[in-house]
C-alpha cells in the first residue's frame, strides 16, 4: 500500500466541511508556517522537498518561487491553475471536489511564502459545481480566521478569489490564463517577460497547479527533507494519477512514484488490469499531449529496465523510446483500440483548442486533423503519413506556447511507434473501419488469454 499524503483523508465523512477537516488536523501547516517560519523559510522547505510542478512540465516548484521578482511597493500574486482541461487528466477535479480545504490551506501557506495578498483560483468553467464547493471552503476559512486581515496576528493579509474560465483549454497555459484572468481573450503571451517578472496586471506572479499547491501542506507538516525521502530520485513525494481507458478500475490514485508501470496497470490496488482479459496495446501516461508508448516500451525501457511511474523513468530514452509523466493522465488502450482513430480524436481536440495566434499552430493543427480524418475514413494515401510527420515536425518548437508541441507530439509518437497501423489503414480502407484489424504491438509479458 503506497503512502498517501494528499488523499489520505479524502474519504473521511464530511471532510469537505471545515469542522471535520480541522478536526482531522487541517490548517496545521498554516499554524506552523505562520508561527514558526518566515516566508523565505517556507520557500526553502519547498525547495528541500524537491517538489516538481504537477501541472505537466514538472519544473521544480521551489526554484520557480525563488524566481519571483520582489520590487518594493508592487503587489505580487499567486494564481492557482485549476483550468484542468487536458483529455485524460481529471485529478485536480477530484482533489478540489472532495477535499477543498487542502487546496485552500496550501494556498494560504504558499501566499504567505510568496507575499501574495490576493490569490486567485482560476478554474475551468465547466467545473461549475466545484466553484461552489471552493467558495464555501473559502467562506469557512474566512470565518475561522485563516483568511482576511492580520492572519494569526502575523500582520499578513490574504484573500482568495475564485475566477471561472470560459472553457478554453489554452487558458491552462500560464500566460493565457493570466490574460484571461485580466478579462482579456485567453491568448498566450510571448515570453520573456516571464510571469515571475510581469504577470497579472504586470506584477510579479507565480502560477501553480492545484496539486502542486496542495502538496505544500504535507511538505510543511512533514518538513521538506522528510517529504523528499518519499519517492525516488528527483521524483519526490506523491503524485496523483488519473487513470482511464481500458482498465478495470478507472479513477484517481495517489502513488509514491516507486511503483512500476506494470504494477500500476495490473495490481488490484490501482487500475486492476485490462477488462475481459484483453492484452495491453499502448498507453499515454501523462495526459493526451504526451507521446503514446506501445507495450514493449511502456513496461520496459529501451535498455530493458523496468519502466517506473516517475518522471525520470517515463522520460528515459527521450521521445524516441520514452514519454513524459506530464500531468498524470494515464490513458490505457487494449488490443482492440485503433491508434489512428485515437490520434485523430486528439488532433481534433488540439485543432479546436488552438488559439490561432501563431501560424504553425493555427494552420498546422487543422491540416493534421484533416489528413488523419482521411486516413481514418479510408481516403488516405501512403504519402500522407510522411506528410503528417513533416507537418508535426514544423509545428513542434516553432509556436508561441506549448500547445503546438502538445498537438505535434501525439501525432509524432503514433507514427513513430504505430506506423504499420497507419499503413494498414491506407492499404485496407474498408477493413480498417471494422476495428478488428488485429495488428500486434503487444510484447506483453502476460500470457495471451484463452478465449
Amino acid at each position, binding site marked *: 500500500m503506497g503512502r498517501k499524503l494528499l488523499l489520505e483523508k479524502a474519504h473521511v465523512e464530511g471532510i469537505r466541511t471545515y469542522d471535520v477537516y480541522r478536526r482531522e488536523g487541517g490548517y496545521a501547516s498554516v499554524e506552523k508556517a505562520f508561527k514558526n517560519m518566515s516566508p523565505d523559510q517556507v520557500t526553502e522547505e519547498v525547495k528541500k522537498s524537491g517538489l516538481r510542478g504537477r501541472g505537466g512540465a514538472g519544473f521544480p516548484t521551489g526554484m520557480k518561487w525563488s524566481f519571483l521578482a520582489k520590487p518594493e511597493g508592487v503587489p505580487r500574486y499567486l494564481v492557482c491553475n485549476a483550468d484542468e482541461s487536458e483529455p485524460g487528466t481529471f485529478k485536480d477535479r477530484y482533489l478540489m471536489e472532495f477535499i477543498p480545504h487542502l487546496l485552500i490551506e496550501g494556498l494560504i501557506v504558499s501566499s504567505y511564502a510568496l507575499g501574495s495578498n490576493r490569490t486567485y483560483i482560476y478554474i475551468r468553467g465547466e467545473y461549475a459545481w466545484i466553484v461552489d464547493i471552493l467558495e464555501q471552503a473559502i467562506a469557512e476559512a474566512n470565518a475561522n480566521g485563516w483568511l482576511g486581515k492580520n492572519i494569526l496576528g502575523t500582520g499578513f493579509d490574504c484573500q482568495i478569489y475564485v475566477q471561472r474560465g470560459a472553457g478554453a483549454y*489554452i487558458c491552462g497555459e500560464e500566460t493565457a490564463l493570466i490574460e484571461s484572468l485580466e478579462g482579456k481573450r485567453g491568448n498566450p503571451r510571448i515570453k520573456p517577460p516571464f510571469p515571475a517578472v510581469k504577470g497579472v496586471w504586470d506584477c510579479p506572479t507565480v502560477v501553480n497547479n492545484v496539486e502542486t499547491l496542495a502538496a505544500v501542506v504535507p511538505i510543511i507538516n512533514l518538513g521538506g527533507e522528510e517529504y523528499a525521502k518519499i519517492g525516488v530520485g528527483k521524483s519526490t513525494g506523491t503524485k496523483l494519477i488519473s487513470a482511464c481507458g481500458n482498465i478495470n478500475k478507472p479513477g484517481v490514485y495517489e502513488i509514491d512514484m516507486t511503483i512500476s508501470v506494470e504494477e500500476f496497470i495490473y495490481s488490484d490496488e490501482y487500475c486492476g488490469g485490462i477488462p475481459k482479459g484483453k492484452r495491453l496495446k499502448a498507453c499515454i501516461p501523462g495526459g493526451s499531449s504526451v507521446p503514446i508508448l506501445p507495450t514493449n516500451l511502456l513496461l520496459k525501457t529501451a535498455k530493458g529496465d523496468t519502466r517506473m511511474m516517475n518522471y525520470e523513468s517515463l522520460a528515459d530514452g527521450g521521445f524516441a523510446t520514452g514519454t513524459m509523466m506530464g500531468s498524470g493522465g494515464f490513458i490505457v488502450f487494449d488490443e482492440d483500440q485503433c491508434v489512428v482513430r485515437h490520434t485523430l480524436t486528439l488532433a481534433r481536440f488540439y485543432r479546436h483548442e488552438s488559439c490561432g495566434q501563431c501560424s504553425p499552430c493555427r494552420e498546422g493543427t487543422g491540416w493534421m486533423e484533416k489528413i488523419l480524418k482521411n486516413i481514418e475514413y479510408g481516403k488516405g494515401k501512403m504519402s500522407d503519413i510522411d506528410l503528417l510527420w513533416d507537418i508535426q515536425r514544423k509545428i513542434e518548437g516553432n509556436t508561441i506556447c506549448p500547445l503546438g508541441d502538445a498537438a505535434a507530439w501525439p501525432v509524432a509518437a503514433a507514427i513513430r511507434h504505430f506506423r504499420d497501423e497507419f499503413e494498414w489503414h491506407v492499404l485496407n480502407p474498408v477493413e480498417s473501419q471494422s476495428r478488428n484489424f488485429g495488428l500486434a504491438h503487444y510484447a506483453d509479458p502476460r500470457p495471451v488469454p484463452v478465449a
Partner: protein
Amino acid sequence: MAEEKKLFKVTIDNITIEVEAGTSILNAARMIGGDVAPPAMCYYSKLKGSGGKCRTCLVEVAAGSTADPRPMPKLVASCRTNVMDGMVVKNITSERVIDARNGVVEFLLINHPLDCPICDQAGECHLQDLSYDHGKEGTRYEFNRRTFQKHDLGPYIQLHMTRCILCYRCVFTADQLTNKRVHGILDRGDHAEIATYIEKSLDNDFIGNVIDVCPVGALTDRTFRFKNRVWFLKPVDAHRDCPKCSGKVTLWNRGDEVYRVTARKDQWGEVEDWICNECRFEKKQTSDWVIEGPTKISRQSVISQGHYVGIKKPKETVVEVMDGRKPRLLMDIHDVSEVNKPNVDLSKIAGPAHSEDFK
C-alpha cells in the same frame, strides 16, 4: 555629461555589430540590412506589443551571451527577443531556420489564396515576397480553403478575410491609434477571423492606417481598390498643412491624377507617420498637396519594374503558331468581376484605363 549608452556586441550570420541594450535581434539585423534581416509579417516597430505571432522571423541563437554561451534550444522570434552581449545569431546561415521558415510560409499560404494577379495588394504584398524567397512552387495541401464574403467595413475599407493571415497589426493599430476599437479577432484556431462582430463601420479619423499596416491584401482602400495597378502608378512625396496629422504622404499618381494617398513607408514597409482619413481618402487633387518630388523606391520593387531603357520585347508568336488566327477570347471580364462598369469594354480603351473612362 550625458550618460553613456550601454552597447552590446551581437553577431548575426557572421557579421558583428554593436547595438544598444534593449534592441531586438530583428532590429539589430535590420541595422546590418540585406538578407541578414529576417522577414516580418506581424511585427511592426511602430505598434507596441506587435510581433511574435507569424513566426516568420524565427532565428537560431547559437550562443546566448558571453556570460552564458549556451545555445537556445528552440528557435526564437527575433522580433521579440532582445540581444545580449556576445550573442551569436544564425538567420539565413541556419538550416533549421530555413526549414522552419519554409514551413511557416507553407502554413501561411494554406488559407491565403495565391491570387496575386488579381489581388489589390499585388506588387506591395509582403507575403508574396516571402513566398518567393522561402516558399515552394507547389502546395501539399489538398483540402478546401476557408471562404468568406467580402465585407465593407464602412465607406473606406473593405475586408477580404480570405486573404487575412491574422497578423493582428490592424487590431493593434486600432487599439493604439483610435479612441475606440470596433474590430478584432473572433473565434479561435483556423476558424479565427477579423470582424466587427455585428456589421459595424470603421470610421475613426485614423482608421485608414489599418490598410497601410496590412501586410497582405486583406484590408483594402475602397477609394482605390482595383482602380489601377501599383506598377502603373508613380509615387511622389507630398505634404499638406493638416490639423490632424503630419500631412506627410505619398501620392500615387498616374499623369496628373491622384489615385491613392498612403502614409510614407520606410525600407521595411512600415509607415513613417500615421495619416488621417481626410488626407488619405478625401484629398485626391494634386492641388491639395505640395509636391516634394519622386518617392525613392527600391530597385528591387515591382514599382521600379517596367521602366527599363532599351528594352527588347520578345517576338509575339501566338498568331504565328495559330496559323494567323488571333487567340479566342474565352472569358469576358464583366462576367466574373464587378470591378468595372459593364458598359465599358476594357479592350477598346486605348492604353491603360484611366478614371475618366469610368465616368
